[in-house]
């Protein structure tokens, strides 16, 4: 079956690219779609993100993991223009992206989803989908008033949206308000809507959070599908089973910096990663000063978390 060979070849080529790659943070990739240099973001005294160098391989599924408060979502926000970095530069397809506003980042083919799903509640599922399409003639004020200008394009968009809805098994809900969907269905809708943009790089912020187990497999399948269609995926996740299952490469963040990279099979046995998750010298008894500094770190992380929560 052609589909199958495609699947294996995409996955194989992605894996082949990562073969024998050093497990060092910031390791260069043969064909990077996204290159990040020295991105810093501070909130008051707290440095939330301080990434020296990181590259994302084109056509791969890369996972971004790390303990709570590691700065993963903040890093996502910097890259996608939702928050302004204090310093640093990054390129997408060789084009500089620092300081570019969020909507232009998306237009360039770098589309994200959110940790807390942002379904547009009082729009129907189909309208949610249509919104994702780019370069719509009917989105300009003057042309909007005369349907003849945009009818044809709208029909094409609707057709594409319906194909995607079928693929994501949401076609039965097309006329329902998005607000009436379940949590998992909203995640699916958000992903499908992101695909309407026709992105090259899809950035998923915790795609599995709050999804019931029955839907997990189907969501995983969809993420793998993105790679098979030639897209690059970068996702933040806590669930290590999922990371091991679908990712080709894993980047680990802790306290705002990238501390390790490696293939999913071995990354969790990396000393630095274990330290990050469990604390340094987790088997040795702690001295008073160490205890204090750990407490401070935990506090800072918690504060960042709270801030993140309250701003939602």
């Amino acid at each position, binding site marked *: 079956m052609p589909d199958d060979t495609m699947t294996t070849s995409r996955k194989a080529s992605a894996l082949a690219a990562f073969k024998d790659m050093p497990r060092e943070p910031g390791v260069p990739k043969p064909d990077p779609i996204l290159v990040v240099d020295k991105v810093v973001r501070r909130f008051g005294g707290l440095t939330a993100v301080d990434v020296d160098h990181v590259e994302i391989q084109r056509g791969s599924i890369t996972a971004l993991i790390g303990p709570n408060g590691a700065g993963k979502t903040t890093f996502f926000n910097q890259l996608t223009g939702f928050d302004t970095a204090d310093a640093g530069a990054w390129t997408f397809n060789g084009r500089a992206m620092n300081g570019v506003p969020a909507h*232009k980042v998306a237009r360039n083919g770098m589309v994200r*989803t959110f940790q807390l799903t942002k379904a*547009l509640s*009082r*729009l129907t599922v189909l309208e949610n989908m249509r919104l994702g399409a780019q370069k719509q003639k009917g989105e300009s*004020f003057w042309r909007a008033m005369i349907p003849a200008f945009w009818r044809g394009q709208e029909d094409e968009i609707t057709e594409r949206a319906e194909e995607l809805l079928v693929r994501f098994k949401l076609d039965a809900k097309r006329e329902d308000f998005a607000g009436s969907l379940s949590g998992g269905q909203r995640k699916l809708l958000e992903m499908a809507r*992101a695909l309407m943009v026709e992105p090259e790089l899809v950035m998923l912020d915790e795609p599995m959070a709050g999804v019931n187990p029955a839907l997990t497999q189907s969501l995983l399948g969809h993420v793998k599908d993105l790679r098979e269609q030639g897209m690059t995926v970068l996702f933040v996740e806590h669930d290590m089973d999922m990371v091991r299952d679908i990712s080709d490469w894993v980047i680990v963040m802790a306290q705002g910096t990238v501390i390790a990279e490696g293939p999913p099979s071995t990354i969790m046995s990396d000393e630095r990663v274990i330290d990050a998750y469990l604390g340094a010298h987790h088997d040795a008894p702690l001295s008073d000063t160490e205890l204090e500094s750990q407490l401070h770190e935990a506090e800072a992380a918690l504060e960042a978390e709270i801030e993140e929560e309250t701003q939602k």
Partner: protein
Amino acid sequence: MDWLTIITTTVHAAIGWESVVYGLAAIGVNIHFGYTGLLNFGQAAFMAVAGYGLAVAVTVMNLPFWMGIVIGLAAAAILALLLGIPTLQLRADYLAIVTIAAAEIVRLVFRSVYFKDIFGGSDGRRGFTGDFYAMNPFPPGHYGIGPFGFDERVIWFLAVGWSVVLLSCLVVYLLMKSPWGRVLKAIREDEDAVRALGKNVFSYKMQSLMLGGIIGCLAGFFYGLYNGAVQPDIFGTEMTFFAYTIVILGGAARVFGPVVGAMIFWVLFVFVGNTLAELVRNGFIPFMTTTQVGPIRYALVGLGFILLLVIRPQGIFGDKREIAINAR
């Protein structure tokens, strides 16, 4: 009790100048608040700059009537820019505070002695409607049935006014079923999601603020044209608040919601006010004086508004389901 007067004034209010002026103001607010989720609490300022733009152009600068209209429209557009640039990138409550403050600035400047030569201080400006009524094609007479009816001056005003109201509704209808309107509604739901889909949210919010402001400014023209004058204190926060009450009464994000809302609002407002005044005058409510009817009427609007939002936020004709989805 003079029931005939109560009933005729009530009926007149439903189709009269009040519904035209407040209907237009509310159509503007509906674009801002109902469709885009922008909390513009300075709609009165848009009406004021338009009304004064017309009045000052005609009476002070001696320009023709149409130039006055153009100046009024331009003033509203500039006001939208001035309000929008600092606030449209901020949290919703900042826009509310800034627009309410801006409306107050506009009112204070218009009523100031310092600018009395231009804006006429607290007396405002009058004497700019001649050209409008000179265009009246209706011959003098009474138009209506029995006690219900208007003279040729009012009927001309209402003919133009309701045409503009219907035209505005048509524009809103066409825009809101287009992809452009879809972007606005999506911004109302979650602007970050819209940004992530490659739409320039700021630009759409600005377009919405401007469109709603310009429709609101038409309300300012019609206020001036009917009353033959503009005074600063008419354009206070109460006027904006009435427009919000009307939008929610008729159902937010509905094309005809503001129009129906305005008619219902004015029927209730005039009926309750006149009935109370009559009751007081005839000694049925001994603890009240006629001057106290005014504040009680306003207080009742406030109470009604609160009850409406708490008990029936979708308005009279709205769909409960839609609101329930939004209650997160």
